[in-house]
């Protein structure tokens, strides 16, 4: 086992532990910290997939923006983290676990029985230049649609804030 393999297994272990903390922890603030841990782990996996630009975007957007937004929402929405009982009943938890394990088994069978074309990695690194060329050459229409979506979401968030201030 090489040294890079050990680092890779550590990164995957950190990602899985972060996902479990995100789902199973009692309070929401611990769930947010688990989400940040998972995002760092996925950024490390992106580095192993020869996509360092995407890893930097992952850290910048998820860790820098979305988790801070979630932290502000937790702080604005009252001290919900003081009562640690998050799930309602144990039967609901068991039912959710059954659904999750069943979907895991179905997709496990799908992954193992599908025939991917070539699973050998070529020695080809997609650089940031290639990503920009693809974004402005073939994928221009989805790119513009994403910008429209973000503008609409910003205006919608501002309108929600104004509307709630008007009702006060």
């Amino acid at each position, binding site marked *: 086992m090489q040294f890079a393999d050990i680092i890779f297994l550590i990164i995957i272990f950190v990602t899985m532990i972060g996902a479990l903390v995100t789902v199973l922890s009692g309070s929401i603030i611990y769930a947010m910290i688990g989400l940040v841990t998972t995002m760092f782990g996925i950024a490390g996996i992106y580095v192993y997939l020869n996509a360092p630009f995407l890893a930097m975007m992952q850290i910048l957007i998820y860790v820098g923006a979305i988790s801070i937004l979630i932290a502000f929402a937790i702080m604005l*929405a*009252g001290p919900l983290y003081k009562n640690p009982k998050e799930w309602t009943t144990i039967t609901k938890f068991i039912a959710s676990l059954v659904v999750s394990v069943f979907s*895991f088994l179905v997709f*496990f069978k799908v992954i*193992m029985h599908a025939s991917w074309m070539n*699973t050998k990695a070529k020695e080809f690194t997609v650089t940031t230049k290639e*990503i920009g060329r693809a974004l402005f050459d073939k994928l221009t229409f989805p790119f513009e649609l994403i910008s429209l979506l973000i503008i609409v*979401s910003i205006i*919608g968030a501002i309108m929600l804030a104004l509307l709630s201030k008007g009702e006060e």
Partner: protein
Amino acid sequence: MTATFIYNNLYIYLFVALFLLCCGILGLLYRRSLIGMLISVELIMNGAGLNFVAFNRFVSPDNAYGLSFALFIMGIAAAEAAIALGIIILIFRKFRHIEGQKIKEMKD
């Protein structure tokens, strides 16, 4: 030499993404507050992005479409988080709680 590395295998990335998807489904089903459900949705979207990047690396390594769609997923997740958190704050101002089961009326 390069074939002996563990990270040169497609299946381990797919299994990590599948694990994230199942954790997201579990959290989305049994979380009681709306912010917990939103965090679970973020987990599911990250699993989808990881799948896109892994397939781009291993199945069609000659172009950069999978990486571009992972960037699109990040943009969609940011817009969705902004709108959802605005609605959650509005619900908290109106009902004084953010529990998903107790919100039964949409308007007065």
